[in-house]
């Protein structure tokens, strides 16, 4: 006769918890709750057992139960604010949160940002201290730049390594897709884990200097099948437009300056150029837009094998007219366990099809500049869009009609992508403490694009239209194998956890080259080669040793050896060690009974990581490259092709970052208040920088080589409060703050404090550099002239301080003034829950970041309105502040404080739970607003900028979303 245990797993409000795990370890029995929360464990014997109930985000419950026949017991779980028992993914394994030795932050689905989120990284914007996620603008699927602790490099990549289900992404961009992560459905993501210090990241070796982001996707769970359908429908509106002059203000400027002429002809007055319309060009190119995002998933177990099948469809329109992204995604995963659970298999397959229509973003700056007195349409040969004509062609110095730019350029992209992995974890029959883990992954994609501009379009008048196409493929293969041995030796209260592994990564991308054509069909250029393959391989060996004594003292050491095809054989291998020590002070006797402290942990770590991304695949090789059809040379009557020797550095080697980190994790009052503090110091040497080399020694005066050092220091604090914790009401809030400062300490082959090198130009005069790298400065600091102001605080045009006192104003008077890096970043989250209602919001702030207002420096001058090239343009309203006639690009006037506070998200959700007794249907309704408000002194469109230069930014929309989530 067998007995059974049935019951419910309930949360603190008495609602059933689907997906909770119930285990009787002594009997090796386990199950998972379905949506109803009601479980059944059969085949038991009568007697006393310990039942372990676990659920992410809740304290693990170990409850003694007496089984007698068919026993029914309900289990009530308490939320674990601090998630100390949560199992967190780390590189090549998992760890309980309380035992972590590195600086690691996990954000799981319940804490994600809400609303219309179409690329995964935006889910954790503002959620993790020291992680800045800045969207590339408001275009559909635009993606973001992720910076963990500011990045550690100058010219090489500052992007973190992203690992999805154990498969590292290559870092290559995928052609004809808005961004690589935009091909991944955010709804499929279970959690993000951010590895920040070297002890956490060094096991990823050469790709870890900029931090590592581990993404875990949703998996199937045992139990009765659960169907989940969600639909999010949103409406995006433009939150702010660039302040420009109205048509009447332009008329006033023209009428007030009757003497200004653009050439010697007395009839050529600006007044004669004025139009009769009042056109708001920004209104003409932007529209409110609708997005729908629908996802359906089914998960359950088939003959005991958990599975998950999912599909999603996104249709997102952009603020810019004609911008549209359509994405269909599908996912399939099974997780069988074989041989009495000794072999666990995880199989994940995901695919996506993306079709995008890209609006011509040149329209953005042209709409700012275009004369508002002109109408959109006019009778002409340019598709009847008004254009400035000079002689018989569009004036080459004029902006193009913004609406014409969009309507007459048809830019389409299509991408197919499939990625997946098969992970086998075998625990040896004769030695269950020993696991062998094999992970095979792939990521392949193919992108197609076509761009067509008709013959009559003014934007391509020079070539009478154009047609180009592009095709590219990516093929990334990963195979990894590791052995893990974990053993607890009771007699010495010691736990040993040893991992050793091998990895092989093969990334290649192929670009196919096509001829480009005029609209007439005439060939503009033909490719020299039909295609080019870029390939990179990485071979790795890695190991980790973790020793835990008495559950209090944890020593962790890792080592990775990476060999990359990007370096010559002598420099190919890099070795990246790390060591971390953790003291769980809370485990000491003197704190055991503390009523105040619930957690206290000290973490110290040191490690070295490498970087080689962001440089070419073959830079160490001496090679000759071919000219193109536009770079031939005529001798006699013959046009010749030839090869050109490329500059190269045979000695290229790894960029190496050494990181020191000290951290303290704390919890008070049973985790009602908890958080952590980290301080760190990173030192990068052998920076991969493009710098001036002695002229004459190579085939360029600049060369990518290992030179320079950079320091990064910073601190991060996060604090979480569970202010109200009750049966009907809960109020939590979390704040995080980070300070980060990067500083260049050497830049040149011969260390010289005077050496500076350009690190970014602006739009306006050709080749004007504004940002420079220099010793003792933040990378990319602004290098400008000091503006002189009159007694009314108006900037005096062209008057700058003679800083070096030599009596003339020239480049010698430029100085370093501010930088785009924020000094401090903050994130603030709160959610208030009362019964079935939840209110939540996320705010973010950056302090001490500066931005160069390139929009006003370029357009906000009188010379722009009354253009000497014979046309009228619009200007930004900043012209009223400066009254500048000519562009003063390098005035520090245009460097503006761009500190901001943004409310990213505010939402309300109603969780109806089970909506009828007769079935298991659950319903959740949510309403969200994204980009709610921005508080800033900056007068331009948006203070948030990746490079610190405000120009041609696609406005980030304000979005209203209504979502329904139905479960069965």
């Amino acid at each position, binding site marked *: 006769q067998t007995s059974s245990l049935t019951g419910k797993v309930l949360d603190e409000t008495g609602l059933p918890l689907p997906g909770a795990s119930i285990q009787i370890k002594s009997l090796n029995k386990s199950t998972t709750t379905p949506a109803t929360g009601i479980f059944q464990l059969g085949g038991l014997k009568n007697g006393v057992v310990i039942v372990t109930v676990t659920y992410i985000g809740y304290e693990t419950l170990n409850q003694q139960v007496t089984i007698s026949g068919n026993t029914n017991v309900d289990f009530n779980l308490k939320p674990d604010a601090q998630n100390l028992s949560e199992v967190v993914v780390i590189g090549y394994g998992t760890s309980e949160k309380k035992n972590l030795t590195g600086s690691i932050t996990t954000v799981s689905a319940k804490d994600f940002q809400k609303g219309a989120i179409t690329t995964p990284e935006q889910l954790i914007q503002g959620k993790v201290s020291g992680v800045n996620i800045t969207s590339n603008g408001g275009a559909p699927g635009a993606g973001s730049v992720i910076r963990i602790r500011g990045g550690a490099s100058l010219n090489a990549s500052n992007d973190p390594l992203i690992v999805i289900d154990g498969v590292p992404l290559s870092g290559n961009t995928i052609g004809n897709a808005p961004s690589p992560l935009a091909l991944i459905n955010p709804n499929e993501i279970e959690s993000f884990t951010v590895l920040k210090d070297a002890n956490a990241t060094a096991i990823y070796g050469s790709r870890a200097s900029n931090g590592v982001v581990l993404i875990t996707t949703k998996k199937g769970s045992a139990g009765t099948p659960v169907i989940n359908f969600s639909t999010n429908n949103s409406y995006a509106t433009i939150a702010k437009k660039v302040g420009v002059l109205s048509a009447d203000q332009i008329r006033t400027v023209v009428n007030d300056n009757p003497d200004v002429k653009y*050439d*010697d*002809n007395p009839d*050529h007055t600006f007044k004669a150029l004025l139009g009769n319309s009042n056109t708001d060009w920004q209104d003409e190119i932007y529209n409110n837009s609708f997005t729908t995002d629908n996802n359906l998933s089914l998960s359950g177990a088939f003959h005991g094998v958990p599975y998950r099948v999912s599909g999603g469809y996104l249709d997102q329109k952009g603020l810019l007219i004609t911008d549209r992204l359509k994405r269909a995604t599908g996912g399939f995963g099974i997780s069988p366990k074989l041989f009495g659970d000794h072999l666990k298999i995880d199989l994940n397959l995901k695919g996506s099809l993306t079709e995008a229509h890209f609006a011509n973003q040149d329209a953005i700056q042209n709409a700012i500049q275009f004369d508002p007195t002109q109408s959109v349409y006019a009778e002409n040969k340019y598709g009847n869009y008004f254009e400035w004509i000079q002689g*018989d062609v569009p*004036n*080459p110095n004029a902006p193009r009609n913004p609406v014409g730019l969009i309507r007459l350029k048809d830019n389409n992209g299509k991408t197919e992508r499939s990625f997946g992995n098969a992970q086998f974890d075998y625990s040896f029959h004769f030695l269950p403490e020993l696991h062998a883990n094999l992970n095979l992954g792939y990521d392949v994609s193919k992108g197609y694009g076509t761009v067509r501009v008709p013959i009559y379009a003014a934007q391509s008048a*020079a070539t009478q239209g154009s047609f180009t196409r592009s095709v590219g493929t990516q093929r990334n293969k990963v195979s990894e194998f590791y052995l893990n041995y974990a053993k607890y030796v009771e007699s010495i209260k010691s736990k040993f956890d040893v991992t050793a592994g091998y990895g092989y990564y093969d990334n290649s991308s192929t670009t196919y080259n096509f001829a480009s054509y005029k609209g007439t069909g005439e060939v503009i250029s033909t490719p*020299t*080669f039909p*295609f*080019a393959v870029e390939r990179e*391989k990485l*071979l790795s060996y890695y190991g980790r040793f973790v020793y835990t004594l008495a559950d209090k003292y944890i020593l962790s050491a890792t080592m990775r050896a990476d060999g990359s*095809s990007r370096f010559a*054989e002598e420099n*190919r291998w890099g070795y990246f060690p790390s060591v971390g020590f953790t003291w769980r002070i809370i485990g000491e006797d003197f704190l055991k009974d503390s009523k105040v402290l619930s957690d206290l942990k000290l973490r110290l770590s040191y490690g070295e990581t490498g970087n080689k991304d962001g440089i070419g695949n*073959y830079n160490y090789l*001496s*090679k000759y*490259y*071919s*000219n*193109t*059809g*536009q*770079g*031939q*040379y*005529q*001798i*006699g009557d013959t046009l*010749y092709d*030839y*090869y*050109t*020797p490329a500059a*190269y*550095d045979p000695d290229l080697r790894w960029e190496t970052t050494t990181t020191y980190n000290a951290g303290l994790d704390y919890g008070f009052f049973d985790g009602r208040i908890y958080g952590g503090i980290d301080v760190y110091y990173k030192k990068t040497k052998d920076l991969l920088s*493009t710098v*001036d080399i*002695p*002229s*004459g*020694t*190579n*085939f360029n*005066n600049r060369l990518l080589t290992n030179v320079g050092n950079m320091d990064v220091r910073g601190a991060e604090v996060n604090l979480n409060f569970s202010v109200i914790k009750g049966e009907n009401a809960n109020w939590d809030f979390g704040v995080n703050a980070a300070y980060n400062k990067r500083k260049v300490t050497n830049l*040149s082959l*011969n260390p010289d404090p005077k*050496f500076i*090198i350009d690190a970014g130009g602006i739009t306006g*005069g050709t*080749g004007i*550099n504004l940002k420079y790298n220099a010793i003792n400065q933040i990378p990319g600091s602004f290098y400008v002239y000091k503006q002189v102001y009159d007694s009314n605080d108006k900037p005096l045009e062209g008057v700058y301080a003679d800083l070096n006192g030599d009596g003339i104003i*020239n*480049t*010698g008077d430029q100085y370093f003034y501010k930088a785009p890096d924020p000094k401090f970043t903050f994130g603030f989250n709160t959610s208030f829950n009362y019964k079935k209602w939840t209110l939540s919001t996320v705010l973010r702030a950056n302090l001490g970041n500066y931005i160069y207002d390139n929009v006003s420096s370029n357009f906000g001058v009188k010379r722009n309105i009354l253009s*000497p090239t*014979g046309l009228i343009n619009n200007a930004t309203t900043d012209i009223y502040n400066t009254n500048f006639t000519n562009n003063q690009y390098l005035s520090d006037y245009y460097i503006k404080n761009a500190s901001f506070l943004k409310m990213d998200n505010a939402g309300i959700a109603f969780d109806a739970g089970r909506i009828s007794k007769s079935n298991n249907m659950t319903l959740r309704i949510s309403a969200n607003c994204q980009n709610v408000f921005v508080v800033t002194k900056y007068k331009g469109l948006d203070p948030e900028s990746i490079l610190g230069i405000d120009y041609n930014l696609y406005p980030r929309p304000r979005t209203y979303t209504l979502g329904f989530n139905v479960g069965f």
Partner: protein
Amino acid sequence: CKKSDLNLTPTNDQIASSVYSTPAGYKQELVKLYASYALTHSSGATAESDIGGLNPGFTDFLRLFWMSQELTSDEAICSWNDTGIPDLNQMTWTSETTFLRGLYSRSIYQITVCNEFLRESTPEKLSSRGISGADATAIQKYRAEARFLRAFQYWVLLDGFGNPPFITENDVIGKVPPKQIKRTDLFNYVESELKAIESDLADAQTNEYGRADKGADWALLARLYLNAEIYTGTAKYTEAITYSSKVINGGYSLASTYKNLFLTDNNVTSKNELILTINYDGIHTQNDGGTTYLINAAINGDMNPASFGVPTGGWAGNRTKNPLPLIFGDYSGNTDKRAMFFGTKLANDEMGVFSDGLRVTKFRNVNSAGVPAPSIEGKFSSLDFPLFRLAEQYLIYSEAVTRGGSGGNAAQALTYVNNLRERAYGNTSGNVASLSIPFFLDERARELYWEGFRRTDLIRYGKYTNASYVWPFKGGAKAGTGVSDTRNLFPIPSADLIANTNLVQNAGY
């Protein structure tokens, strides 16, 4: 995966031994040396450049050389606000000025690729690659041309920067800093190279169009000797006469019409005056510098760009500083047809206003019948630029005679000058009766303006820096003022001073 699997190579690139495997390969690589005069990069007008640190469109040789010679002089001013341009307009450049660094880097780049060619074409390399007989003889001629092109760029450095780093084919590619050479030593090197290759070069006017021959070699020697006193302290007017005479007697003759020299069929109409050209092609040799720059930067919309063969162009940058038209006296073009100006306002009131100053209409992307040359985007030029032409040699001969050099005679000198003036006036009404040293500074302006000679000429006459001769914006003052004599040399760019500790900065910077 084996460790050796980590050796990967690019799909389409080559290595030196495959590039230089056949005689045709050597010819291609010789063309590369010429092509690097004409282009910013072998991919045409793209975002790439052979040299770093400057907007790619600015990095071709002619544009940079022209800016250094003309914008810094009394002949031209540019209205653009790009960092460094006002510094050139006003002679307030520093060792940071990007355009000077660009010229320096471009010259040295071309020297470096010439060195590579010389390393790959030694007799040992040729025999190891199985090249012999007539092929090897032809390559011997290529080597002489490579050395000529290298000597030409060393002359540019000698003239502009004085004391540059010195590298030859004996230096290896890498990061080892080269030594600096003193101006006098560099003069001697350039002179000895040009003399050493003379016999290997093709006879004057016998090489393919676009390739250097003995005529080009003599022409550069003549130019070098004319300025020898500035370069070394020792005048060499006699040698200037010797070598300009060699050119003049080399079979060349003046083109019949001055303006045809600067039109796209100059290789036909003016063939016998051109000694060496940089060849451009609006479709196949695209570049935002070169003559594309000379034409587009000199015009704007109201000058009818289509009549310049660049219907979509017109960048409104360069125009004259007022001394240039005034040197003509009657600058209407009615008497001296070399005066090709547009506009009515002579005064350079505002640096940034394109119409403040007469515009120069000398260079056009049309042929002598007014037909535009093909240009895929309506802005690229197919006009070949004369790097050396016979008229300059006439003027060198005559000036050197007037300055007291021997081996020539005054009557011949006067004839040469009047040959040029007869072409300019269409008759003898502009002929001069006698010559004086100051005359040549003005006559060279009239004959050679905007062709990249002016800075060198003003220095030879001692008028470049000092306050006795000023022009608008000279020295940073609107009316013009003198500057330090140390500005007769450009500074070594600070970036290279830092990268190469062997270098010592020129005095005054």
